[in-house]
């Protein structure tokens, strides 16, 4: 394992990092994506391994391989700090990550702030979304039968 990597996240195979190809977007996935990106910006401390893109990692780590064999993919996402399991089947909270990396409470939030520009690129108001997307037409009042 890389010297600077303190936290490893082992994830199930996904079509895309954002997970938008699900019934609704998993806010956890987005949270983790931005935390990892922001924290690793200066020094890489968190590693993310995806079953589709980095299967070798799952086989090379004896602890991960053992847990996968015992519990199947339900054990993913699996996070490790060294040889200790931090979470099974879910992503760690911000507090858990800060503790694992030895950071001050709230550090992750300021990581994100520091790399985010002042104005977001896309505003919701640009999307011009109307509530409700089903137009139902039914004549409840006296339709004639043919």
């Amino acid at each position, binding site marked *: 394992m890389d010297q600077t990597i303190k936290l490893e996240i082992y994830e199930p195979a996904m079509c895309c990092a954002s997970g938008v190809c699900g019934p609704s977007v998993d806010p956890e996935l987005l949270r983790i994506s931005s935390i990892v*990106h922001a924290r690793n910006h200066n020094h890489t401390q968190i590693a993310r391994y995806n079953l589709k893109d980095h299967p070798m990692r799952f086989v090379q780590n004896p602890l991960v391989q053992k847990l996968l064999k015992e519990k199947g993919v339900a054990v993913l996402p699996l996070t490790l700090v060294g040889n200790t399991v931090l979470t099974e089947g879910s992503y760690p909270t911000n507090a858990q990550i800060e503790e694992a990396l030895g950071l001050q409470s709230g550090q992750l939030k300021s990581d994100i702030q520091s790399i985010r520009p002042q104005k977001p690129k896309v505003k919701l108001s640009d999307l011009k979304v109307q509530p409700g997307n089903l137009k139902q037409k039914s004549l409840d009042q006296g*339709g004639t039968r043919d």
Partner: protein
Amino acid sequence: MINARHLLDQALTKYLFFTGKGGVGKTSTACALAVNLSERGKSVFLVSTDPASNLQDVFGVALTNQGTAIPEYPNLLVANFEPEAAAAAYRESVVGPYRGLLPEDAIANMEEQLSGSCTVEIAAFNEFTQFLTDVKISDQFDHVIFDTAPTGHTLRMLELPAAWATFIDNNQSGASCLGQLSGLGEQKDVYQRAVQTLCDSALTTLVLVARPEESPLKEAARASKELGAIGIEHQVLIVNGLLEEGHDQVGQSFTRKQSAALEMLKIDPLLKGLKTYSVTLKPFSIMGAKALKHFFGEMPVGADVHEAPPEKAVVEKAVVEKTAYRDLEYLIDALHASGQRVIFTMGKGGVGKTTMATAIAKGLNARGEKVHLTSTDPASNLPMDQARSDLKVSFIDEVQALATYKADVLSTGLHTMTPDELAYLEEDLSSPCTQEIAVFRAFAQLVESATDEIVVIDTAPTGHTLLLLDASLSYHKEIERSSNEVPNAVKSLLPKLRDPDHTTVVIVTIAEPTPVHEATRLAEDLERAGIQAKWWIVNSSFAMTQTASPVLAAKGAQEWPWIEQVDARSQNHFILVPWQGNQTD
């Protein structure tokens, strides 16, 4: 419109990409162009992604993904590769080494994520890039002709910095569907060279192929805009399958419909500006050297002045007994008897899903059922004015469904994501998969609220989408805990879809090579997701019209092998619907 034979006399660019809806005639046109150019002394490399079985019939030789010489044409080399096979090979190369090392459900998880149309798109793009950037090929050949083209989505995705970031081994960004490109070595450079060639008007022409029908012309306009926006600006349009003489009522109805569709060429701002060529509908099937030479309707170089054009396909079943084949009423009776509550009509665009869904809905209603007909087609095609209390009609606006979903997603990500990530997310949100999911979500809500009605809908998600949804639900526990009612609707719909007593999928196709191939793929994909497509509808059959118009009758005669294929594939659970002049898609 100029007759397409004039293309042969022009100075054409070195690279020609053909694009257009499935079944419009890209392969036929590309092959015919390749053959005729080679006869004129040009050295031509033809790259086809058409299923090998078809192309072998067209040329009469076995083909591989390396160039194969064609005996009758000394200046022609043909390569055939199947993106699906390439994607499968890629998938196996990723997953194969881990069988036995990882548990089965992990292997299944990996496989499914590598089984979408995106993986196939990337496999195809991989091959295009090889041919586009190979110096030996560009030196040796006057023309390199491709009978397909990369999609706008694929090209845009590859432009995003975030897409390439995953190849840097510091594990910053997580998953990517571009894993296959890692096999290319200096991927980004090769890709950039390929794109530069594509966008160079002196080097590349995009040939948009359409039929004189509304749906393919709309698709041509869409592709023109999308690929033009990326920078592929040298474009021409070929309208294939023009019938000049109607002869009888069916024929005249057909030519009228074509003329009406062609009005689009005068109105649509994009199509208007394109140099447009036409190819007439042939009474012979486009198989074999002779047919290809005569495709552009002129005497080929060096041909015997008395050489006759190809024979019409042998008409084995000259007279169709209408009662020999089951019709729509039979199908509706069967659906009624089955007691199913959700009925999908499914098939590629333009085959008649909406028309069939409407007919089924009305038919069930006439048999005393409460029905809710739902469509994703713009309202003009739905019988809104015929709705009544026991026959509801709803329209799912695809554009709005996607916008709602995008807003949902972006509002979650807006405060925490960087511009790079947002850009990647936005492109992910423009993918065909996301569009499908957005519509499926809307549909799930509708089914949830339909209590005692049969729901008939004219579209269906692919098997891959359903499996992704499935996977997502099991892995992302947040969604299970979520109070958002949409995922709950999706969650309760998925098992219903797999219950054959509850749901049935009716596949709609037409009796032509590519549509049947595409419909077969859709059916297989659904089967992977555990959904049986029990019934098939062969729509718009000319064989069933008993027309005397010679070209249309020949077209009808060519349908039989495909009807037989559908018969076999559906285990005789199919019906034939004749072509009707007033049927809109």
